[in-house]
């Protein structure tokens, strides 16, 4: 029964105190749920990140062979013509092999020598050739050079291949390990920063495989994606939330957009294949197409997040602006959008994260491909980072295991870099009223 007197008695009663204690217990529990939720989420992230970093950090360093190579004119350019065609067709592998064999004169048997030279990566010949092409005066000189060590030996040195296992259980024989150890003792194996991981494109040889093509590809693709998805997404969100008459058509569009969010990403790939490749004859494996497909996939996220954010702007702000004679478009651009920006940017961040890590639709439009060359434009064949990860994860060679994790780290760094911009912007727009 409501009383005309204050509830002082009630509020100071033991009952109320007990009730209050309960309410505070609920409060603490509620708050704890929050802490636990964040803790669990962060914990999961930490577990994921540690396992990635734990597996991948070794890939950022790599062992090289330091050999004194004689750029034998007889091998490179017997005629002394210095004709680029001749120079580039020479057998540079032989130079490296000779240099290595010089360290182990005692190895004479053919098969043993072959085992020995398997230490030299396939990439050595190409790196030596590049050196000579860049500087033909090297021919005839001796030079201390660093050439890549074949991945299996790199893995032994990094401990990823267990040398205590019986010989038959590993790819590297005891003898080969002994050779490597000798080289290490000689100081002819140097461990250094793995610049090839960033300077090279993809390769079938783990020690040569790099992310440059994937990084550039991702950058190009993402430029297309964001360049389309952000303006279109925000425009659509603004139109639907602020201007569209509420009728069947806009309901249809709204349902449609929500529905598109649930379309499996691979189906967007099918769309890309059918429409952009087959109907519009756009190039396969190209960042433009990949970008468009990912943009279509990201759009619903940005639109839905954007609409939610626009909806949260109090109507009184709109009234105030309309009241001084702002046009609806001005109301939106001057007041509503800035206030909704944090939410829109969240949509962009999440959409971008999704697009940056997505592989399935790219399969359909030819971006899951072995592409070595770094793309030079939006129409060139290219891969993207997640595809690189996907393909490395599915490669048999042991050396790709650490590289897969390293690539994931690079992708995450890329993502964090991109996010940082958006997060910074979001903070600028944030306010409570």
């Amino acid at each position: 029964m409501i009383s005309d007197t204050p509830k002082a008695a009630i509020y100071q009663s033991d009952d109320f105190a007990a009730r209050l204690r309960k309410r505070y217990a609920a409060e603490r529990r509620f708050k704890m749920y929050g802490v636990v939720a964040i803790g669990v989420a962060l914990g999961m992230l930490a577990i994921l990140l540690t396992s990635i970093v734990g597996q991948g950090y070794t890939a950022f360093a790599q062992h090289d062979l330091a050999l004194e190579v004689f750029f034998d004119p007889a091998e490179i350019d017997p005629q002394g013509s210095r004709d680029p065609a001749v120079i580039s067709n020479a057998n540079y592998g032989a130079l490296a092999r000779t240099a290595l064999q010089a360290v182990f004169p005692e190895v004479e048997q053919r098969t043993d020598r072959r085992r020995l030279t398997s230490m030299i990566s396939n990439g050595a010949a190409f790196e030596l050739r590049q050196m000579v092409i860049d500087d033909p005066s090297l021919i005839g000189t001796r030079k201390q050079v660093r050439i890549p060590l074949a991945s299996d030996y790199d893995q032994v040195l990094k401990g990823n291949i267990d040398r205590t296992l019986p010989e038959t259980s590993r790819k590297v024989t005891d003898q080969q390990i002994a050779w490597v150890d000798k080289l290490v003792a000689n100081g002819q194996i140097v461990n250094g920063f793995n610049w090839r991981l960033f300077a090279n494109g993809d390769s079938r040889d783990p020690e040569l495989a790099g992310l440059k093509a994937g990084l550039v590809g991702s950058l190009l693709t993402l430029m297309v994606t964001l360049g389309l998805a952000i303006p279109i997404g925000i425009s659509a969100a603004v139109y639907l939330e602020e201007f569209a008459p509420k009728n069947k058509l806009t309901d249809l569009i709204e349902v449609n957009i929500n529905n598109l969010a649930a379309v499996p990403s691979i189906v967007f790939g099918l769309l890309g294949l059918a429409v952009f490749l087959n109907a519009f004859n756009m190039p396969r494996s190209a960042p433009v197409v990949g970008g468009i497909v990912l943009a279509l996939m990201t759009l619903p996220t940005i639109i839905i997040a954007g609409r939610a954010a626009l909806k949260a702007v109090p109507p009184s702000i709109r009234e105030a602006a309309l009241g001084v004679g702002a046009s609806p478009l001005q109301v939106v651009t001057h007041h509503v959008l800035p206030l909704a920006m944090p939410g829109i940017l969240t949509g962009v961040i999440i959409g971008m994260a999704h697009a940056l890590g997505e592989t399935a639709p790219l399969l359909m439009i030819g971006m899951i491909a072995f592409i070595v060359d770094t793309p030079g434009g939006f129409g060139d064949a290219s891969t993207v980072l997640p595809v690189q990860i996907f393909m490395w994860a599915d490669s048999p060679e042991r050396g790709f295991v650490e590289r897969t994790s390293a690539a994931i780290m690079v992708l995450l760094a890329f993502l964090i870099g991109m996010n940082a911009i958006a997060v910074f912007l979001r903070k600028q727009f944030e306010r409570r009223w």
Partner: protein
Amino acid sequence: QGRDQIRVVGSSTVFPFTSAVAETFGRMGKFKTPVVESTGTGGGIKQFCAGVGVQHPDLTNASRRIKKSELEGCAANGVTTVSELEVGFDGIVIANSKSTAHADFTIKQIFQALAKQVVVNGQVVPNPHKTWKDIDPSLPAAEIEVLGPPPTSGTRDAFVELVMDVGCAQFPEIKALPADQQKAVCNQIREDGAFIEAGENDNLIVQKLVANKDAFGIFGYSFLDQNMDKLQGAKMNGVAPDLDTIASAKYPVARSMYVYVKNQHVDVIPGIREFLAEYTSEKAFGEEGYLEAKGLIPLPKDKREKVRTSILNLTPVTM
């Protein structure tokens, strides 16, 4: 628009080899590095056969031979002449973790372990075997748990052909069935959980095997080759899978891999001939060539010669 870069599509099994050739080819500097896509054999052939012109690929990888129907489809789309390059062999292994005993199966036993229906006491019944021991007392008492490729993959197709069909043929009771039933019994793999379809990621299977000691996995030889420290390949009819046994066909579960070439694109898209020459050079697909290092089992020498002359002359494939 023009195109000056070779495009290859097709099998994920052949992909590592073709891409290794492409890389070397590109490194030589005269031509751009070909783009090699992994679309699966069927998808690759579909694209390959869709027509001629820049928007269609020049080559396709296949982990099985092209089918007659597919060739006809090609011709219908104007892809009239296709030549075939047999790359080498791929062994399919059944492997398990090194921490358990080295298994020794017969093909018949594998069939009994994995078929949906088997013969027990002269009757064709749904597969009752829960443990390997149920099949043969000499086998371990562990539960049957085999991770293998999904029905959509070429490896699965080959496995069915090379193991299931062969194993099945050893049962006169099944032979006695009418032809269509016989096929059904031979080809169906059990779905009660003993066989686990594990998707296309073979590294994942490898790691699952390491974690689960009782499980076996079915995948290509190269994954075993790279993980010798963790896994061992079960002997099949007494033969363990390795380079020699597969190449000499002693190991019974091996198949050939192919690359198909669209002849009409040769001389139009620059570098196709040179690429094929590189592929069939001894340093690539020969013994001790760089493809062997990637896990390819090379063809015998005389076969290689034949393949080389045939592909360099662009001899059209016929069925």
